């Protein structure tokens, strides 16, 4: 008897054992239905919040460019200060726009992961792509942290501090940036997007009704 026959025998045994089991009652099914309906309403609210956040980020990015192009040339400041502003403002504006683009891309990708339509192979491929994205996301965040630290080292004249002061600066910045970019970003941006995707089907159904 080969391994597959063994598996088959065990599988049949499992079938016999579960034949008379009641896994879920009608009441529990009704609870699931009701909870899905409630969740759908909550995701409408979340979607609205997401749109607000996107608009806010777009507004801040546009404002930064306006400051850079219109306000900055008219301000009275030293040459060094102007150079610093010219470097810093595009850096933050590009960060915002890049982050928003990445989020939208992720959001669209998650929308395409339809468990009721895709063959298993496609779903596995999508999950692998998603994992790679998640790894790239972490890499991008780490690179950004180093860029930001380097930029601040110059912007905040940290290089003029003592060696201990500089070490403290790097240690503190690293911990703070890691916390801000990873935990807050995950909590505020990524998780709501994921929840929205989870309930997108109900949203579509609500829209049809």
């Amino acid at each position: 008897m080969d391994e597959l026959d063994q598996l088959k025998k065990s599988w049949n045994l499992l079938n016999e054992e579960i034949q008379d089991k009641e896994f879920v009652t009608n009441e529990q099914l009704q609870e699931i239905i009701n909870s899905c309906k409630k969740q759908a309403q909550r995701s409408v609210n979340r979607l609205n919040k997401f749109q607000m956040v996107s608009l806010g980020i777009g507004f801040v990015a546009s404002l930064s460019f306006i400051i850079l192009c219109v306000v900055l040339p008219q301000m009275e400041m030293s040459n060094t200060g102007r150079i610093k502003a010219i470097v810093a403002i595009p850096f933050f504006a590009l960060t915002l726009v890049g982050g928003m683009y990445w989020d939208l891309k992720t959001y669209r990708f998650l929308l395409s992961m339809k468990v009721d339509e895709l063959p298993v192979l496609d779903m596995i491929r999508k999950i692998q792509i998603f994992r790679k994205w998640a790894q790239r996301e972490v890499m991008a965040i780490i690179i950004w942290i180093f860029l930001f630290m380097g930029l601040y080292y110059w912007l905040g004249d940290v290089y003029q501090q003592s060696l201990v002061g500089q070490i403290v600066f790097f240690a503190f910045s690293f911990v703070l940036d890691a916390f801000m970019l990873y935990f807050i970003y995950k909590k505020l941006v990524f998780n709501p997007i994921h929840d929205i995707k989870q309930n997108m089907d109900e949203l579509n159904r609500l829209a049809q009704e």
Partner: protein
Amino acid sequence: MKQNEERRMATDILEQQYKEVIHTYKLVIFRVCTMYASEKAPVMDLYQETLINIWKGYPKFRGESKLSTWIYRVAINSCITFMRKERNAPEYVHINEQIENYLPQESDEKKEMLKQLYRMISKLEPLEKSIILLYLEEKNYDEISEIVGLSSTNVGTKINRIKEKLKKMNKKEQN
């Protein structure tokens, strides 16, 4: 007023149909979930995730494939995507408590047999699990192909490779 009444009736019918579908396929869903269950993805959590996804997808089901084929697809995809949330899940999975509840209590031989089943299954990749699950469920190559998205020929090749893998695993275990 009349429109609201009609909408409510349509929802009631849909809910009733959904409950009937779940009761008809409750064992199928459970078997799929046991295949993918782990410590981090308990079988009943997978079961519930699948029930939710069936509810979400059911209104869009247009009968282009057999209902059973669709149920297998949703159940397998639900289990796989549930695992997606558990990125740090261990590669080798142990039998979890909830599955043990369904193991026969009276016979050690039977219990050992089922433990062996889960031990072997747990070492397979997600795609291999889905193929072997459908094979054990006595689905023909065309049906497996439709659910999984591989060609029928590739399904046959995959099954042969899984057989080899299981043989090696068994040998390793005996050594």
